[in-house]
């Protein structure tokens, strides 16, 4: 017997409904339904180009800085200006701080609370999970709030506040930073590093970095059984997270933070990977097709050429989100993609052994803060050594220009594409990480990553399908970013932009 379930998923930034069809306890069809449309691309049309710096951060309260950076980089690109090295350092510190706190909040406030679900009542980890991760009362929700608000002070020192500031501007940053402020940032970063070493990983970051295979991870876990990687791995083994949520798709990253001296390259390179090899990235290979979207054009188009003419009557269309693809291939994005692009031996080994399962994808999010806090400390020290350098070069705006800005938000690849005509925004296209991960079927009939990850998933208790939460949350979904997707009776797709 086939059963249709419609499950609103909370602890997601924005509203998400998952619609699945279950046959013999297995998911045979899945649709993810974002339920809010705000129309940002139309909100931006006709406005002054710099207004994107104020409006796009407000797409998403949790990635607000990432949108700001993408918007500023799109204008850098349109006005053909390279920001000075010191400005790139400050931009990098800002976005790394946002992603770092997001990873911590995502794992400890969004992902782990699912293991306090009553369905796990009889599991040996249940009481530990409750004392550590229970919303409002658990040890980690409280601890994580305390440390993440310290991390966010870093952005506030640089940009005035978090969320929703606009200190990153085409040509650099809005205002010079001085030694006392940078020293304050350094102190906050060191405090964060100590928190990670003492409370999360239970070892020095140097020791953690030496883990280079699943085998050495297991040894590390037995040495530090109270570490978060140990507790998560233990729970993952008992809840089948090593086996569920696989897509088999490739990975995409636009690169993690620009090199200050050569902003065309990044600390972690941009790339596409099939899980074995890494291929050079070229933004021209990004395209969106609307085969299953209710828009007029069927062709795969680059975001600069994207059209959004609604076609309500279009046959077979079930969504208002276009399918974004890289070189016609489905790709997922996020921390795991970044670990692969950095040729990390641990994650290549994990992907080879367990595929892109929930465990592997989420472990990347558990480990990424270790990498980012080191970047923040190094960049702050570098900024201190170069305190005399300029942070802003005045651009000479062209009244007619096009540009794109690509960056790595907490959830993965984020891109803005802007067309300026007569000094006004003529078109603005945003492809967010959730557009990649939550995309619909494409012209070749390939499912988007979330859909694929849910297919075949076994649901033990239909009234309490906690497994769906594990799978979807391992992608760190962000639904408030919905830009061009509109309500369509029952089968609705409203993900990404």
């Amino acid at each position, binding site marked *: 017997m086939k059963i249709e379930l419609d499950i609103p998923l909370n602890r997601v930034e924005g509203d998400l409904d998952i619609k699945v069809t279950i046959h013999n306890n297995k998911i045979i069809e899945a649709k993810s339904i974002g339920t809010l449309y705000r129309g940002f691309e139309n909100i931006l049309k006709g406005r002054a180009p710099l207004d994107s710096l104020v409006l796009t951060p407000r797409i998403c309260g*949790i990635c607000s800085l990432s949108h700001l950076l993408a918007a500023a980089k799109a204008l850098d690109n349109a006005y053909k200006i390279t920001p000075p090295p010191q400005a790139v350092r400050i931009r990098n510190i800002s976005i790394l701080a946002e992603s770092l706190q997001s990873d911590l909040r995502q794992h400890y406030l969004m992902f782990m609370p699912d293991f306090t*679900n009553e369905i796990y009542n009889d599991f040996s980890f249940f009481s530990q999970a409750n004392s550590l991760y229970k919303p409002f009362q658990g040890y980690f929700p*409280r601890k994580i709030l305390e440390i993440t*608000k310290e991390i966010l*002070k870093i952005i506030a*020192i640089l940009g*005035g506040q978090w969320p929703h500031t606009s200190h990153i501007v085409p040509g650099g940053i809005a205002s*010079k930073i001085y030694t006392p402020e940078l020293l304050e940032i350094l102190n906050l970063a060191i405090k964060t590093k100590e928190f990670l070493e003492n409370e999360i990983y239970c070892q020095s970051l140097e020791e953690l970095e030496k883990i280079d295979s699943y085998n050495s991870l297991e040894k590390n876990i037995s040495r530090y059984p109270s570490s978060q990687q140990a507790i998560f791995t233990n729970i993952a083994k008992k809840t089948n997270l090593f086996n569920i949520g696989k897509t088999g798709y490739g990975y995409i990253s636009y690169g993690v933070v620009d090199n200050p001296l050569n902003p065309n390259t990044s600390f972690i390179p941009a790339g596409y990977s099939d899980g074995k090899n890494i291929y050079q990235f070229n933004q021209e290979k990004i395209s969106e097709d609307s085969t299953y979207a209710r828009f007029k054009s069927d062709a795969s188009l680059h975001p600069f050429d994207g059209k959004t003419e609604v076609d309500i009557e279009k046959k077979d269309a079930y969504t208002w989100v276009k399918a974004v693809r890289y070189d016609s291939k489905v790709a997922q994005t996020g921390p795991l993609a970044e670990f692969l692009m950095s040729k990390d031996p641990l994650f290549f080994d994990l992907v080879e052994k367990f595929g892109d399962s929930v465990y592997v994808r989420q472990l990347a999010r558990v480990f990424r803060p270790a990498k980012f806090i080191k970047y923040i400390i190094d960049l702050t020290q570098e900024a201190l050594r170069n305190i005399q350098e300029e942070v802003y070069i005045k651009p000479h705006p062209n009244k007619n220009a096009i540009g794109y800005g690509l960056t790595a938000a907490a959830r993965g690849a984020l891109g803005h594409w802007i067309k300026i005509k007569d000094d006004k925004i003529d078109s603005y296209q945003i492809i967010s990480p959730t557009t990649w991960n939550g995309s619909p079927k494409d012209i070749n009939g390939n499912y988007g990553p979330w859909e694929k990850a849910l297919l075949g998933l076994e649901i033990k208790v239909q009234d309490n399908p906690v497994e769906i939460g594990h799978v979807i949350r391992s992608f760190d979904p962000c639904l*408030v970013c919905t830009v061009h997707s*509109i309500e369509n009776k029952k089968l609705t797709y409203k993900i990404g932009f």
Partner: protein
Amino acid sequence: MNLYWLQSGGCSGDTMSMLNYEGNIFKLFENLNINILWHPSLSAIDSNTHDKLLQDILDEKIALDILCIEGNVVLGPNNTGLFDTFRGKPKKELIKKLSYKASYVIAVGTCASFGGIGSYDEMQGVGLQFHHTKEGGFLGKEFRTKEGNKVINLPGCPIHPKALENILYKITSKSPIQFTKRNTDKEYYNFTVHQGCTRNEYHEYKVEEKDFGERGCMFFHMGCKGPTTLAPCNKYLWNEVNSKTRAGVPCFGCTRSDFPQPYPFFQTRNIIGTPLELPKGVDRAHYLAYKDMAWAAAPQRLIKRTQRV
């Protein structure tokens, strides 16, 4: 007291900002004896339990003391509300039903208060009891809660966590609240953003910037709304450490009912070099004379921008 938090047409930014509360926000709820029935980003009850909770609230089996709405009420497309749905139905219907069951309704953020992002566009976002400057909004001018209260507006994009703390304290302790004509708490919002800005001395002598990267005032050319916006940004600092104007970013007037203004940010609309919009209560002719004299008296350390801000 029981609190239910609903997100509608917004970005979750107010929730994110709330989590930056200088103490621990969970502890604050405990201290004020607030029982969070539901918060979409924080609660872990499954959807069936949540459905039952909602029904119990609507059936008045569970008292709804405080209802927090984050984000605007979405009326689009064409007043159907279908751009924002809950379980297939326009969310605006749920907002209305819950509002009539609550003792206090708090509009968390500028979107919920006045419409905010999407209030000039196809989304047709409106505030709970205001649309921009006009009273009425979604629930109507005459709306009162069960206990006879108007919607309490907490504007800000995002809200400052202190604004939320202040209002929750006053509600739970039954302290009197003096309201402005926009239904905001007068005690909290009775500052201009300009007050306490570290660029004040530059402002005083009309040492004004036309571009980023410098130290002067941003009011005359760069669209700073600090002197015309009511919010304590430079009194109660953001994330306890800073404010946008101190960091060289103009105030965008995000607590104002016309935010996000339908004209460009980063530019000051002006008449013959003087801002069209002057600080409240100022006489234009006198202001012009004062500013010209101030400029003539400006010290070199400001003109040369050697003074830090």
